[in-house]
């Protein structure tokens, strides 16, 4: 393969995002909805922490827009939320990288809540605010999965030598 290391890295990052998107739209029974985390948000946070010079606000926005098209929500709704959490993660990435894993998970929890808050706020402005407490549990599940997902993505990153 004549692909440069940089291109290979980019392809790896893109692959992880595609997997995350598919996981987000996998069908499940409605009782399971509160327990399914936002895989795209988690993957975005990881790459913003690990490779902030490659994955940042713009990538977050594009991911959010893709989710808007797939979810059928208003264009710009998830785009805005994802670009916001990408921004915060990139700005704080030096500190986040130094945290012990559990403290990282708490920060991830805050970021995921922030993401859901922005989406809920926009939905509220357009008339369909989510009505249940169960709306927020995916963020808790996501934060709980963070240590495990971090290790997986770190292995992927190292294998593919993504800088």
């Amino acid at each position, binding site marked *: 393969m004549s692909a440069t290391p940089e291109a290979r890295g980019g392809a790896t990052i893109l692959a992880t995002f595609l997997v995350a*998107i598919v996981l987000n739209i996998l069908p499940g029974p409605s009782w399971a909805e509160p327990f399914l985390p936002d895989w795209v948000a988690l993957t975005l946070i990881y790459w913003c922490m690990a490779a902030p010079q490659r994955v940042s606000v713009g990538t977050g926005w594009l991911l959010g827009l893709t989710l808007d098209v797939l979810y*059928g929500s208003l264009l710009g709704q998830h785009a805005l939320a994802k670009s916001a959490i990408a921004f915060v993660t990139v700005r704080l990435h030096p500190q986040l990288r130094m945290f012990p894993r559990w403290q990282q998970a708490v920060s991830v929890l805050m970021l995921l809540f922030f993401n859901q808050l922005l989406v809920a706020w926009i939905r509220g402005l357009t008339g369909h605010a989510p*009505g249940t407490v169960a709306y927020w549990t995916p963020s808790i599940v996501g934060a709980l999965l963070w240590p495990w997902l971090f290790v997986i993505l770190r292995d992927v990153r190292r294998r593919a030598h993504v800088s």
Partner: protein
Amino acid sequence: MITLFGKPLRGPTSLTRLVLLVLLSIALLTLDHRGQHLEQIRAALKVVVYPLQVVASIPVAVYQHTREAFATERTLREQNEALTAERQTILVRLQQFEALEAENARLRDLLGSAARVADRALAAELLEVSLEPFSRRIVLARGTRDGVYVGQPVIDAHGIMGQITEVAPHIATATLITDPSHAIPVLVSRSGLRTMVFGTGDPDSVVVPYLTASADIREGDLLVSSGMGGTFPAGYPVATVSSIDNDPNEAFLTISARPAALLNHGKQVLLVWPGQGQGKSRAPTSAKAAP
């Protein structure tokens, strides 16, 4: 490094990019919410992301394939017998229905009312993808090339499911009656009372919010579509009243109803063209053989 007036020029900072993208997002949201200006863009983007939806629907398709492949001959024979028996019952009721339909037409003629026309129906398969969490919508494998239009009623064998809210050439999105943004005009079958049924986001129930204590409605009443507003054809089951709460502090009754259609389990649904049926037959044209 490029310099301008002695200061090094760098690319836009992340803050600048954030501000620009937030403004762009707000512009998109306003355009998408207020008007239908973004339909073309959304349709084009949908085509781009379609492969992801196909990939996401593979696990369920594989599971169903495997389950069918492993079905024993005995299971299939039992299913066959049950379906044959059900078909016999339905054919008998169809004969009675045709007689009633003829009588109805004669009576309407006597009264000078317009004749009721049958509805055309087309079966559509559900694409097994999940849309935005906590919104009650489904994706169908039919689109504008099958004549599907925005506002078209979607039903299953048991009642009304919802209406089409977005179409692309090959797929369409339907909003179910349980979605918070959906309302359908109905008729209480027993008393003739006209009212509206709203979705709340709860997958298993809908509400009837604007009735006072003097309204003639009881638990167990069947709510059928009234046909008002022209979107849904009249006479199709919508929901059955499951609970009525008369709180003296509230101006209106708190009424919950259970949707008639199997909103969360169906695999095939029907798209209806009200008033375009041929003759007396109500049999829907079937989709190409389901995998």
